[in-house]
């Protein structure tokens, strides 16, 4: 039937001419139950598997992280192909604190960008977001370290030196940086976050000096078993601080007033 443009009174008359269809109560109840079931099945909040979540979070990691890691690795290979062991060794020493700086800087971006409060109120709260970020960044760091080790071996560098000059500073600096992040929480600033890995890097140098008995490339080196022991201890410290950070970060800022420490930024 054509309705077209009609007046309200005409429309009323038209509607009155139509008798509503008879509803079978049994069918109606059945339909409602069916709809309710369908709605329950319609999951717009699916629980994604862990690899899928990692991939999702990976796409939100800042580009500069990948670029700087790839840049360092390329530089190491460039000198490794030239068999320039001295430069490769120097680069490897800088690699540990460098990777830590990238790690802690990217990890704490929620605090620096002041998005932590919004993120805390989401389904995957701050603790889970930090856990995903740590998994991604540690994964990438170990790939870079593996690549660096291959590069170092190309210059016939011994494994213990790689442990001493790269792994130990990386583990120790990262552990200290994560500890600092645990202590300062949302009050962290760019200047403070940069200062922590750099200071830790310097402390690493002092530790290496204290462990050492002989000189290699201007840096004294140890000759006993203290290198693997110190490296493992630093790894344990790093894992401990990473776990504590993930478990504490959600309520990290609760007993503090919102004030920044040493904000030079």
């Amino acid at each position, binding site marked *: 039937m054509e309705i077209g443009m009609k007046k309200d009174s005409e429309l009323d008359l038209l509607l009155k001419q139509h008798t509503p269809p008879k509803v079978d109560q049994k069918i109606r109840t059945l339909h409602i139950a069916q709809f309710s079931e369908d709605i329950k099945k319609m*999951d*717009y*909040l*699916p*629980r*994604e598997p862990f690899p899928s979540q990692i991939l*999702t*979070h990976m796409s*939100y990691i*800042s580009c500069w992280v990948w670029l700087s890691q790839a840049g360092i690795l390329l530089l190491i290979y460039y000198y490794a192909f030239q068999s320039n062991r001295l430069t490769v060794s120097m680069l490897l020493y800088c690699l540990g604190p460098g990777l830590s700086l990238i790690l802690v800087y990217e990890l704490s*971006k929620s605090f620096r*960008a*002041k*998005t932590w*409060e*919004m*993120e*805390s*109120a*989401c*389904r*995957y*709260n701050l603790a889970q*977001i930090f856990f995903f970020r740590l998994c991604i960044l540690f994964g990438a760091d170990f790939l870079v370290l593996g690549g660096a080790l291959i590069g170092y071996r190309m210059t016939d560098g011994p494994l213990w030196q790689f442990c001493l000059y790269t792994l130990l500073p990386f583990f120790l600096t990262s552990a200290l940086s994560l500890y600092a992040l645990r202590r300062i929480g949302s009050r962290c600033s760019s200047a403070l976050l940069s200062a922590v890995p750099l200071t830790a890097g310097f402390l690493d140098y002092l530790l290496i000096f204290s462990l050492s008995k002989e000189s290699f490339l201007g840096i004294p080196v140890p000759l006993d078993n203290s290198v693997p022991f110190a490296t493992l201890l630093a790894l344990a410290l790093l894992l401990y601080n990473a776990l504590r950070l993930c478990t504490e970060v*959600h*309520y990290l*800022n*609760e*007993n*503090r*007033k*919102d004030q920044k420490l040493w904000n030079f930024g």
Partner: protein
Amino acid sequence: MELRIENLTKQYGTFLAVNDLNAVLTCGVYGLLGANGAGKTTLMRLLCDIQSPTAGTVSYDGQNIRENGDHYRNILGYLPQDFGYYPDFTAMKFLLYMSAIKGLSKGYAKQRSLELLDEVGLLQVKDKKIKTFSGGMKQRLGIAQAMLNDPKILILDEPTAGLDPKERVRFRNLISSFSRNKIVLLSTHIVSDVEYIAGDILVMKKGKFIHEGRPDEIIHSIDGKVWECRVPNGQVPSLEGRYNIGNMRTEGENTILRIISEEKPLESALNAAPNLEDLYLYYFNDEESSNGK
């Protein structure tokens, strides 16, 4: 659906930010009024489970929100007072990121983000970086992220800060259309926003609710305490020192004053009908002045 606050207390050292609060919030829009430092932001953080209470509980439909974990956060939308963005994200990328951590499926997230960007008037700039946005645009994007998961509980801390009058009207309409069958709690210093959209108002002072009720009920509590009078311009400074002046308008040699006072300030003063702004000034004028000092 109810959000029950029982004996809620939050203490920072010796300072009681939230002091033994009790309230039951059901569907509707609630306006939270209070001066700076009254405990509004702490209360909102406690309701969002971002901070843990020193004592007391918050429960949603009988379940403690701290034990409910992500089930509670699934139905929660929150806009903090002081927030920022990842500057290199575009508006669309930011909403997709927030959708991802809210656990929304990718298809739904994309559709909902576009819908909300349209509603807050940012669809045209969805691919522009947030660092190029004005304060008002950032605020609107914040409101959009809070509504991504179609929350049953929406908590907005100073949502209209930085919005111009036109944007505020748009925000009020957005909240009004959104609030059906939901609990919306918003705090603001802009009293008119609360007056227009809030069905109930909670007045907070020094960590406690000092008034709770419909706007017209609360306003009646200061009946007979608002006065209007016309005085010569020269008399204004002395009256300013003695009384709580709500408004002043100069008309030639005279000034029309709106005074909030327990007693009649001048013989010529006439009682005026109070509004929510008068109420705010009545309770918080002292605190606002001391905060300003």
